[in-house]
Every structure is written in C-alpha cells, then in structure tokens.
C-alpha cells in the first residue's frame, strides 16, 4: 500500500470536519437583458395573484395605457423606475462585488444601487420611503440575496403597471446558470396590500463584454424608452 493513501485519508478527514463553504458567486460582469419585459409574469408564466384592490388598480392602468394616455407612470417624466422594473429594460448593468457591499450600476438612467453586505433590513416605520427602497445583501451558498423594503408608492413593478404599496418587501436571489454563461434573478414580491400571497418571477440575463463602456443616458421628456414598443 502506498504511503500516500493514509496521508490522503487524513487530509480528507480534516476537510470533512471543516464547515462546508460554497464559493461566493462571481457576478462581477456586464449583464444584459436580451429582450424587454413589459409585463412581469410569475415564474410559471401566469398573471400575478392580485387581490381585489390590486386587480382594480391594475385594470385602471391597463385601460389608460390601451387608450393612449398612461397613468401612474413616472418613468415617462424621468422619475425612477424602481426595482424590479429597472431590470426589465434591455440596457446593460454591472454588478460590482466588494467585501463591504454589492453595487448594481445601470446604464439606464445612470442608476446606482448599493447594497451593503451582512446587514438586516430596518423596520419600515423607521425608513424614509424611497424609490429603490433600502437594499441589504447577503450571500447564501452560491447565491447573492438582496432584500429591500422602505419603498415609496410612486413606482410600478413593471411597465404594464403592476401595483405595489409601501409595504412591499422585495427579495432577489441572484445566481449563475448555464455553466456561468447567464445570470438568473429569482424575484419574490411580498405585498399583502395588492396580492393574495407572495409570488415569484424569474428574469435571466446574458453576459456582456466586460469592457463595455456604458453610454450616457440623459433622460428627457422624449426619452428613448418612451418610444420602445
């Protein structure tokens, strides 16, 4: 018997007693949505589980847009998209990863979203309502999980007008799929004001050229997104 085998066995024994550690996902990259998502569906392709209040508001918005006079859409006046809507337009973004934080930095409307690592969401009552809410980030195994609360009521979840209230809790689970070629965001919406129960959507991004130089996006009243079909 080779003298290496007992040594190998000893090493394996040592490794097996150490805490299991999944690799932190390497998400530092340029990511692009292949095609605009104007209407967010659940992960199994259905309309989200709106409650009565949610249905009423959503139908009002759909009707207004169908009539050519959209309501409740601040994006057309260059107000922020908020999340997850900012992810649903086909403009590239970069994820930066540092020991202290993760940053999502977008070409669209030159938005930056910084989520500090290892922290907990504050109680909603203590937060000044914000368009993007207050994101905190944690790694869970090979996923980056960003949870946000403290939203104001001035955004919609998507371009079609899916509603949310100030009580929205947004959870995003980001991870690499397809052998690292694509990035998936599993997004969970919890908002009892407008939905019967929490629901999940899934958005997948392609890898872009890491040296991409983002264009400057100067939002105007005639901003490019307004013209997109």
């Amino acid at each position, binding site marked *: 018997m080779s003298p290496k085998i007992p040594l190998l066995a000893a090493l394996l024994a*040592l490794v097996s007693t150490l805490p299991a*550690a999944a690799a*932190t996902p390497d998400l530092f990259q340029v990511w692009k949505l292949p095609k605009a998502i104007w209407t967010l569906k659940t992960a199994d392709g259905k309309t989200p589980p709106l409650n009565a209040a949610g249905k009423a508001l959503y139908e009002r918005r759909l009707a207004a847009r169908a009539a050519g006079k959209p309501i409740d859409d601040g994006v057309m006046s260059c107000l922020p998209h908020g999340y997850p809507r900012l992810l649903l337009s086909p403009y590239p973004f970069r994820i930066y990863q540092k020991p202290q934080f993760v940053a999502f930095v977008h070409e669209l409307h030159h938005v930056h979203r910084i989520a500090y690592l290892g*922290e907990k969401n504050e109680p909603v009552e203590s937060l000044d309502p914000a368009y993007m809410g207050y994101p905190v980030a944690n790694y869970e195994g090979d996923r980056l999980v960003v949870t946000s609360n403290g939203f104001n009521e001035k955004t919609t979840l998507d371009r079609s007008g899916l509603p949310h209230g100030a009580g929205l809790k947004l959870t995003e689970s980001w991870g690499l799929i397809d052998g690292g070629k694509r990035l998936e965001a599993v997004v969970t919406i919890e908002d009892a004001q407008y939905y019967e129960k929490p629901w999940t959507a899934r958005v997948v991004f392609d890898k872009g050229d890491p040296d991409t*130089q983002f264009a400057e996006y100067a939002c105007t009243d005639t901003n490019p997104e307004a013209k997109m079909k």
Partner: protein
Amino acid sequence: MRYGMTRCLGAAIACVGILLLQAPASGAAEKQVFTKSADPRNFEGVWWTRGYDRTYRQLDKSLPPFNAAGKAEWERHVAAEKAGNPIGDAPTRCYPHGIPRMMASPYPIQIIQTPGLLTMLHEVGHNIRYIYMDQPHPKNPKRSFLGHSVGHWEGDTLVVDTIAFNDRTRIDEEGIVHSLKLHMVERFRKIDNGNAIENLMTIEDPEYFTQPWQARRTYIWRPDVRLAEYICEENNRNEPDAQGITTAK
C-alpha cells in the same frame, strides 16, 4: 469563506480565525464598513467635497483668464441672476452636471476600483463617472454631458483626461461657460495622511479662455457616510420653461 479554507489547510492555528464569525449588526445604526487604506492608490470608499463654493476661481482666487467672449458670457450670467432670472443649466433640468461643475457639488461620492476601471458613484442626481484606466480615448467618442474620461497613474497621482463634452453644461454655477473644445485634466491624489483627496484641475478651452487655468477641490474621507437616494426630477421647483428660462422661486 473559500479564502479562509485555503488558509486553514496551511496551518491549524489559522483555522481559529475562520471560526470566529462576526455577529451581524443588530440593525440599528449603520456601521462603518470602510477602513482608510494606507495604499496611496486606493481611493475606495466615500468622500465628501470640503465646503461648497458655487464658483470656480484660479488657485490665486482670481477670475479665470477670460477672453472677450468668455468675459461677456460670464457677465451675462451674473447679471441675469442679479435680476432674479438665473440662466438654468444642466443640473436645473436634472441632466448630468458636466465636469468640473459636478466635482464641486456638495454631495458625497463613492469610488470603486476594479481592473481597468475607476467608477465614481455620485449621490447628486445619482450620476456616474467612468474613468477607463490605461487606455486611449476612442477615435470619435460620442459627446456627452460628462465627457469621456481616461486615467493613468503618475506615481501616486491619478491623472484623468476628459474630452468629448457637449455644450449643454457650464463650468460653474455662477456663469463660467465652456464650448465643445473643453478639455479637462484632473490630478487626484491623497493628502492629509489619506484623510482627503485633492483634485487639481486644469481647464482648457480656447473658445473662452486665453490659456489653460487651474482650480482645486478637496474631498474628505467619510467612512460614516452612505450615499442617499437623490431624485432631482421630483418636486423640481426650478424647471425651466420651454425657452429654457428659469425663474428663481
């Protein structure tokens, strides 16, 4: 975690470190997460402009070396403001402010350094500056509000060269204007034992100045600060009218 494991296999003593997990913050006050780096080329963290001066002046505090056109434009702007009808510019319309205008803005900046790229996240208007490191400008860069910036190190000074500005911004809030010919060179370096970054700027625009001139701003290391959400478009009380005229309210 993976890094900790590698250390662990090397020496049993190092294993103790990875088992001492930091307890997460209780969720009350924000904890400070940035530590001042001794590396003079490490600019990472949050920095906040020292003071607020809405004018740019030369290093000896004199007005820039205007030619006749530059002087006339400056006087026109100063007079308009005195009359109660300041001439609005990019920030008034929530466009990116331009450089060096935005570098005087009294809002914090978070700097992130990654291979080949230095990114400045500005709180003001959630603007973003990209400094592409160690490479030339593209041949025909598209003009933009913030221009196209490339950077390289000269010793411990980061030299940033910016061209390809549009003509929809001005140099400062008071009334120094610039043309499409504007060329900016900024020299950033740590000072005060790493407690601040100095930006020594050279402003060159033969359309309005008889020669290049220099100005300075300083940004203070602020590990206690996190960028806040800044939404210019909301409740903008100084929206210019269709002719671009702002009436101070």
